[in-house]
């Protein structure tokens, strides 16, 4: 199974939001903790609806939580 091209900053954002647990985020967006684990590992690309729900849970825009392809900071380093 190839790595998904959709990456995210969920782990970092949880930490920045009063060290929110995976279970707390899962409850907030209506999925199981397993799904949050899979998202953080990069094993699963969420549906658009779930992606929006996660972004709303952190009160951020979608592109501040998710990115496509290489990690944005890596691209900046390379360019």
């Amino acid at each position: 199974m190839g790595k998904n091209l959709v990456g995210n900053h969920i782990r970092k954002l949880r930490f920045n939001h009063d060290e929110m647990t995976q279970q707390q985020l899962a409850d907030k967006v209506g999925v199981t903790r397993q799904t949050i684990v899979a998202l953080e590992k990069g094993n699963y690309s969420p549906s658009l609806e779930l992606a929006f729900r996660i972004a709303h849970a952190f009160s951020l825009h979608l592109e501040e939580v998710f990115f496509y392809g290489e990690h944005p900071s890596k691209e900046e380093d390379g360019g």
Partner: protein
Amino acid sequence: MTYQEKKSIVSIISTILIFISFSAYKYVQYPKEGLESTETLHYWGSFVLVLTLVSIFAHIVISIVFNIVFRITTGEKEPTFADELDKHIELKANRNGFFVFILGFLLAMGSLVIDQPAQVMFIILIISGFISDLTGSVSKLYHYRRGV
């Protein structure tokens, strides 16, 4: 290891155990008459039907026991709903399982075309049902561990 991964492993083990023990139980009851006798057909018909019912019942019991053991050993509650990842994985597991069963079904029909006895057709059908069940559980385990 997560709840879903553990459940998939339990499902794989229980599928194998149920199939082997039921086959061993029915093997000794195999009729002594000719291969195409009514009693032989009755035997294979009841094999498929009873195995299906026993499998469903055993899976329900094993699932309940597994949930109780999971709660006691981990202190966590099992997920009460299936979210989009669960549904996605379920669909992929079903697809793989059905694909295997259809292959077995075609093989079973092929055995009749090349004039094999009816019992060969039944054996292929039963084994393909077993392998398709196993394929579904292995697919679930694979996708829960490696992603979708």
